[in-house]
């Protein structure tokens, strides 16, 4: 059904000189509710071309990058001082996305030159940027252990050099922000076309209400927390007094 739609879309579009991408996501909004258990996002699209591919052109590959909002991080290293392990050095890692995963038709290192990857900040080696190499590597290691950075590439299905699909899993401990899904078309170690989509990840319902209140009306939030605590304490005391009779 989706594929048929895309095909219709491609046929209806005006012709252009290059290979370009038509793409969509199964969802472009993710709501973090109290029972949020992670989310799967289905990314699909098609390659649109007006003329047949030239002979001798290398094989077509697709790379899909899904990246969370980047932030500056303070990374600390423990060191032994006075016989105990304490945070000693602290280094700023200039840019680290909150979430990162790559999906590709073949291993990315084989199909795309390092220079191209560097210019697009593509792949964990280039997406996480910082002066101190061991601190940068630590961010990748920690985020991978948390499940926020993928340890391996997800496969992308490419049919007839035209239709591509993949599925990206977002973990349960996601943070809010605008995530981007970028699709790259690759031939001969070079990116020939790119297209981006935004995935809005937002807290919703009770989560949003509590979070906003804690930030914007901190005093009322504190008082509410106290009221809940006192009520529960009183409730438990009364309940068990009744049961004891």
């Amino acid at each position, binding site marked *: 059904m989706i594929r048929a739609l895309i095909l219709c879309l491609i046929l209806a579009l005006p012709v252009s000189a290059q290979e370009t991408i038509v793409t969509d996501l199964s969802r472009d909004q993710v709501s*973090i*509710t*109290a*029972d*949020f*258990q*992670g989310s799967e996002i289905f990314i699909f699209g098609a390659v649109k071309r007006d003329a047949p591919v030239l002979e001798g052109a290398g094989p077509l590959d697709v790379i899909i990058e899904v990246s969370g909002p980047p*932030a*500056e*991080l*303070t*990374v*600390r*290293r*423990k*060191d*032994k001082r006075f*016989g*105990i*392990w*304490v*945070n000693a050095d*602290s280094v*700023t890692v200039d840019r680290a996305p909150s979430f990162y995963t790559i999906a590709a038709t073949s291993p990315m290192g084989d199909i795309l030159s390092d220079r191209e990857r560097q210019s697009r900040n593509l792949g964990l080696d280039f997406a996480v940027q910082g002066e101190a190499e*061991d*601190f940068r590597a*630590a*961010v990748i*290691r*920690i*985020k991978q*252990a948390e499940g926020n950075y993928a340890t391996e590439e997800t496969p992308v299905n490419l049919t007839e050099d035209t239709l591509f699909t993949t599925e990206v899993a977002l973990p*349960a*401990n996601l943070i809010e922000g605008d995530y981007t899904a970028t699709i790259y078309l690759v031939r001969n170690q070079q990116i020939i076309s790119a297209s981006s989509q935004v995935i809005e990840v937002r*807290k919703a319902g*009770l*989560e*949003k209400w*509590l*979070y906003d209140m*804690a*930030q914007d009306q*901190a*005093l009322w*939030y*504190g*008082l*509410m*927390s*106290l009221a*809940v*605590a*006192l009520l*529960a*304490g*009183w*409730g*438990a*005391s009364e309940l*068990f007094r009744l049961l004891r009779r």
Partner: protein
Amino acid sequence: MQIYLPIAEVSVNIFLLLGLGGLVGILSGMFGVGGGFLMTPLLFFIGIPPAVAVATEANQIVASSFSGVLAHLRRKTVDLKMGAVLLIGGLIGAALGVQVFKMLREIGQVDLLISLSYVVFLGVIGGLMFLESLRAIRRAKRPGPKPKIKRHTWIHGLPFKMRFRTSNLYISVIPPLVVGALVGVLAAIMGVGGGFIMVPAMIYVLGMPTKVVVGTSLFQIIFVTGFTTLMHATQNHTVDAMLALLLLLGGVVGAQIGARIGVRMKAEQLRILLALMVLAVCGKLAADLIFMPSELYSIGESGH
């Protein structure tokens, strides 16, 4: 079933939280302590950020101590006047503690401060309690004259004396103020009510009669932890209402069950068990400080 905690920003199993609340509740009901000193480290172990764990635990203690103090008020075993004096000290201490906490959080040493406070206080209290109960058990086996508690110490030489009728005491207000302040600082930094320090201090330093000690301690703890909750909520935005509620539900039920188990056990056995538990938590935290951690690096609060 997983639940996403809005402030901690982690997804945790809901039954794990209810279970933890229940387990610590049972222990607190058995031993008559708030259980914060056990719950806060347990929350660290399951991956709640320490700043959130400490602030949220303060909120939970409000609930459990309020539940407890109601029972003591009915039995008239709360010295309200002494409680008020301890409270004044407590509020000063808590305000100070939250500031220290905020400052250390900015320079990335708050985890160390929390761990160190735990190791020191749990080690000292656990050790003393363990030795004391061993001695009590040996005394019980070899009957003899009970050692007399000295009722007149240097404490009684201090100025600003005040009469506390319920406790049957006429002492200076300085020692209770100091004890209150110390517990207030601990409440803010460690996310504990401080009962495990306050109760021995009231008996041995202030010389209060044992029957009013627990109720008075709980009375003061409600206000200090309540104040701490408010301070953390307004200054650090680290109170997680969802986490607190889940811990609470497990905790209040567990406390009642624990109280029933406690009645069937001997006091010395209870105290020695509690001491061993305190020492075990202390040992685990100390090991984390002494042995090389598997991951030397940690990601702090995002820099601005």
